[in-house]
């Protein structure tokens, strides 16, 4: 067996196949911790508040929000783009890192993919509520109807419908196919008859047959191959919502790559925020090691730096283009009424990730945790700045306005945060958070006891 004694082991401790199953199944088999109950109570309350605000919005109308003429997009679309961005880490980790044969992906891909699905669900809520008339939401789909009307295929907003739906469905398939062997592990591990039946149903009859594994490997590779361009396409399409318009500050060709790297940047930040807590509380520190955190931090520096360059390029192009509206928009962003948001964005997204060049900080868990929250905040403000500052002062000074969110808009945003964390807390009680079979597969090449660090 090939050993990599130079590389840091990806699985710590003296492990064999049985201990891996036991370690990863333990948080599901034991009674939930007190902290889990406290967490899910809190997040469920947030979710209920959010859904109450959504119900009020549908009942009374979109007038409950503080959106106004010229500022037709505000917190709703900011949240849509923020959530979709967070949803980019999962498929990036499982698809693109699979194609690059990065073994460290195996410990985090499962939970990151779950986050992708939950984040996309949260994101998809916003354009639907934003429609205002929810009972007519099927109008966005091309279906034969008595009005003889079809949707407008030239509109980026419609491309969004296709991109987000496809992304949600394909991510779900990819995630669930990867889960099959691990659900089968749970099926054979649980004792309770009814629970066994449920896992047996969910495992689709997985037996671990050699032919199944062979086909599963081929399928996963091709799914990864097609999911990789899909990840890149989804946020590109979201950026088209802005880039194809003629609003100063939006009308730029740099948007697709800039949005995609920003999405991966914020997605990794959210994965770090959650996994730093989960690995400790669930006893998975041997599987999600400091080495894994460091690898994720390296991707944060890379994508964060691309985002930083994009910000500076935008500023340069606004000046270099000579267009007065573009120049004004960027001047207004940095020094206008929303300058505070702009400088929060700049300091969180451009300056703070650069600290990760220092190896000590990259491997410092407390620092990483705080930084990941800074990035989450910074990336939310990025979307806020792009949307609000471009809309509140455009061509005609007579129609300039100002925007502050109403309590309903804040409640809906908090509600989606609640929904995301509730779904995640339920997920960790039902499915193994680390891909058991994939970790077993790399044990002999990347386990600490197999690479000669522990002497037998």
């Amino acid at each position, binding site marked *: *067996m090939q050993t990599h004694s130079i590389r840091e082991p990806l699985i710590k401790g003296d492990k*064999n*196949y*049985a201990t891996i*199953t036991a370690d990863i199944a333990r948080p599901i088999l034991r009674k939930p911790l007190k902290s889990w109950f406290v967490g899910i109570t809190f997040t469920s309350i947030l979710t209920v508040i959010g859904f109450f605000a959504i119900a009020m919005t549908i009942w009374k109308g979109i007038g409950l929000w503080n959106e106004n003429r010229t500022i037709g997009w505000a917190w709703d679309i900011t949240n849509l783009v923020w959530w979709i961005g967070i949803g980019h880490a999962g498929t990036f980790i499982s698809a693109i890192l699979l194609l690059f044969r990065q073994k460290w992906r195996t410990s985090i891909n499962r939970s990151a993919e779950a986050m992708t699905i939950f984040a996309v669900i949260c994101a998809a809520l916003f354009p639907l509520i934003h429609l205002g008339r929810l009972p007519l939401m099927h109008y966005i789909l*091309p279906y034969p109807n008595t009005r*003889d*009307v*079809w949707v*407008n*295929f*030239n509109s*980026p907003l*419609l*491309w969004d419908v*296709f*991109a987000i*739906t*496809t992304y949600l*469905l*394909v991510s779900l*398939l*990819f995630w669930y*196919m990867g889960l*099959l*062997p691990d659900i*089968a592990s749970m*099926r*054979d*591990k649980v004792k309770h008859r009814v629970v066994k039946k449920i896992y047996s149903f*969910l495992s*689709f*009859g*997985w*037996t*671990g*047959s*050699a*032919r*199944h*594994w*062979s*086909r*599963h*490997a*081929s*399928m996963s590779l*091709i*799914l990864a191959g*097609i*999911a990789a*361009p*899909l990840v890149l*396409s989804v946020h590109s*399409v979201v950026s*088209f919502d802005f880039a194809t318009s003629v609003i100063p500050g939006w009308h730029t060709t740099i948007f697709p790559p800039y949005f995609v790297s920003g999405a991966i940047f914020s997605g990794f930040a959210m994965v770090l925020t959650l996994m730093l807590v989960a690995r400790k509380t669930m006893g998975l520190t041997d599987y999600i090691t400091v080495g894994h955190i460091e690898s994720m931090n390296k991707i944060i520096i890379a994508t964060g730096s691309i985002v930083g360059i994009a910000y500076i390029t935008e500023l340069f192009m606004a000046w270099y283009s000579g267009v007065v509206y573009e120049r004004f928009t960027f001047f207004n962003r940095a020094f206008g009424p929303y300058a505070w948001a702009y400088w929060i964005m700049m300091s969180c997204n451009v300056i703070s990730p650069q600290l990760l060049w220092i190896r000590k900080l990259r491997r410092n868990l407390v620092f990483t945790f705080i930084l990941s929250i800074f990035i989450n905040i910074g990336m939310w403000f990025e979307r806020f700045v792009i949307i609000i500052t471009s809309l509140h002062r455009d061509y005609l000074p007579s129609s300039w306005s100002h925007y502050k969110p109403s309590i309903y808009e804040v409640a809906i945003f908090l509600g989606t945060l609640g929904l995301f964390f509730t779904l995640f807390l339920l997920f960790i009680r039902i499915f193994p958070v680390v891909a058991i*079979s*994939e970790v*077993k*597969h790399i044990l002999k090449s990347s386990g600490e006891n197999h690479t000669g660090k522990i002497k037998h």
Partner: protein
Amino acid sequence: METPKYIKASYSDEEDLLRAIKVLKEKKIEIYDVLSPFPVHGLDKILGYRRSRIARVGFIGGAIGAFTGFVFQTWVFTEGYPLNIGGKPYLSAPSFIPVTFELAILFAAFSMVFAFLIRSRLGPGAKPVIHDERITDDRIVLLTGFAGNNSQENIKSIKDTLSQTGAEEITLKSDSNIKQNY
């Protein structure tokens, strides 16, 4: 005693298993299945499986998706409901690309997953034969026949081969659970 139908041997190390399969293959003894908790590297090559054709299914699915997407949009904008948008051409291929692309990916993914599930006889409600509950934990189970000769000596020699290559539990089975579930 009932007639024996197959031998079940369990291994805890994949390298022992690969060695055993090599020996059995040399003796021209049929191997019904290998059940393992994780994909064993190089196993499908030794067992002589052909490369899965699932990639072709994906390609065909993707091609159908792309074709459907593009042709449908073209039909809508030229025949179904021509919409004049700022005097731009009705058939504006570049703006059809995003939807075409997304449908290609969607169809490819679904066709591959369905092909995988149907071909492997997996799906909600499937009733698999579970030869050993430890297969999804830490055991690799090898199901092998006797090359058409179920005499005592032949079975003993196969059992010896298995134990020499490190098999931990070897049992002679007479049920008909060998029915292939793929």
